[in-house]
């Protein structure tokens, strides 16, 4: 009897859709076809992940809001039953210390408040001239150089990399070191050894930098962290880890948005024209929100676990059950966004979940917004004839990365 029940359970699990699903090559900007109907039809369902477990899959916008905001929904990856991203993430669990990512309140609050100072609206707005200058310099270099050019290396990566390294106070000359180790440290296909080596290299570098700033502080984030170390609020290793978090989260994400957004706009010239033909910062800001919604590059599911039984949308999530919140789906929920599959830069989209929701919502979102406003608001105006220098079918997408995007974007004009 018990065997029969177990068999039935296994069969039921086997019939569930696998998560994450692959996108179709023809629709690289859309969620996988099988996911597209879920927000409207089954905002709460279940899926099977790499280890055979069947966590809840939340695709509805309203249901995500509710669960993201619920303190009984935890990011504690040490809880048994936690739906890990990958085998590598599960295996390296004991090597991963407590950070802003895997801590619940109140520890999370303590970590978060050490990081939020540089990302206030005032501080980020003050960076506008610097971001504009890097953007203009890079576009000048593109226009003066040979074409076609890869937009990822020419513009999309350098702008956020310069900004986050300046904000932190690490020299730009080390950016290749950061990019290489930053990517490997979070690559879900990296071996546990590889991701550990990269994390260690980054933490070591930043720990040394923080110690140096304790003796010789400047106006930057590493100096702020150094001051907190001096005050006994945080240890050097913990401070270094926080700096790593900022570094990794701070450059590849915006870079992906710049390149992927440009590719999407080049496919829809009437939308690109809205950005190219405006100098109204409100129009540009709204366009950025819509591109964030439409592209939702954090596409591998936010992982959580229920600490208690939770009623949501007519279902009961039991204590100890895993929860995956798929951000791209919520951002295509027709209840929240009419005609969700359409890119419409004039719509009101700020309630998107591209930065997540709840207490773990992106720390650097205001900086990301300003970076994207400046780059999208400048690139198409300065190079109005910008076009793809290859076929869409030739573009390689980052299906295998935590943040979606393109590896290269050959453009000409």
């Amino acid at each position, binding site marked *: 009897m018990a065997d029969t029940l177990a068999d039935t359970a296994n069969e039921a699990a086997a019939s569930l859709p696998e998560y994450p699903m692959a996108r179709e090559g023809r629709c690289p900007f859309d969620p996988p076809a099988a996911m597209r109907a879920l927000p409207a039809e089954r905002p709460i369902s279940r899926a099977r992940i790499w280890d055979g477990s069947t966590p809840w899959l939340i695709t509805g916008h309203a249901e995500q809001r509710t669960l993201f*905001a619920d303190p009984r929904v935890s990011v504690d990856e040490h809880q048994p039953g936690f739906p890990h991203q990958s085998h590598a993430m599960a295996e390296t669990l004991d090597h991963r210390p407590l950070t802003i990512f895997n801590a619940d309140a109140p520890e999370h609050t303590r970590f978060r408040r050490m990081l*939020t100072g540089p*990302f*206030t*609206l*005032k501080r980020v707005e003050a960076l506008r001239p610097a971001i504009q200058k890097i953007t203009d310099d890079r576009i000048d270099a593109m226009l003066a150089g040979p074409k076609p050019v890869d937009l990822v290396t020419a513009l999309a990566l350098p702008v956020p990399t310069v900004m986050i390294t300046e904000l932190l106070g690490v020299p730009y000359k080390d950016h290749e070191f950061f990019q290489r180790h930053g990517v490997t440290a979070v690559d879900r296909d990296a071996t546990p050894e590889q991701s550990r080596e990269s994390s260690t290299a980054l933490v070591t570098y930043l720990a040394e930098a923080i110690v140096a700033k304790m003796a010789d502080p400047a106006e930057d984030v590493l100096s702020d962290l150094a001051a907190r170390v001096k005050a006994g609020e945080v240890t050097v290793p913990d401070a270094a880890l926080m700096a790593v978090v900022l570094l990794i989260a701070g450059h590849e994400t915006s870079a992906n948005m710049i390149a992927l957004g440009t590719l999407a706009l080049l496919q829809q010239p009437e939308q690109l024209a809205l950005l190219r033909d405006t100098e109204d910062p409100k129009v540009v800001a709204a366009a950025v929100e819509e591109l964030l919604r439409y592209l939702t590059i954090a596409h591998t599911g936010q992982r959580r676990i229920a600490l208690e039984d939770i009623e949501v949308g007519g279902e009961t999530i039991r204590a100890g059950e895993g929860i995956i919140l798929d951000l791209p789906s919520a951002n295509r929920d027709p209840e929240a966004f009419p005609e969700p599959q359409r890119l419409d830069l004039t719509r009101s989209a700020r309630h998107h979940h591209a930065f997540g929701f709840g207490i773990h*919502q*992106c*720390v650097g979102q205001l900086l990301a917004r300003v970076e994207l406003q400046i780059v999208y608001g400048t690139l198409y105006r300065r190079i109005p004839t910008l076009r793809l220098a290859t076929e869409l079918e030739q573009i390689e997408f980052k299906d295998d990365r935590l943040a979606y995007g393109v590896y290269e974007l050959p453009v000409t004009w």
Partner: protein
Amino acid sequence: MTMQVEVDESKCIAAGQCVLSAPEVFDQRDEDGIVVLLEQRPGAELHEVVREAAGLCPAAAIRLAELVEG
């Protein structure tokens, strides 16, 4: 109609959504970005943006009471 705004600093995570929506009503502390309430009873012309700010707050740190005077 009058609107009364309350903020809960202990819940605030300094995402900055409220200052982006309604800078006339919300500000951020310089050191850590935690919300500072500038206007407890914002005028009618601000009600819509304040509602937007409360709805967008990811940490549910903004509470609104809207009272019909009578």
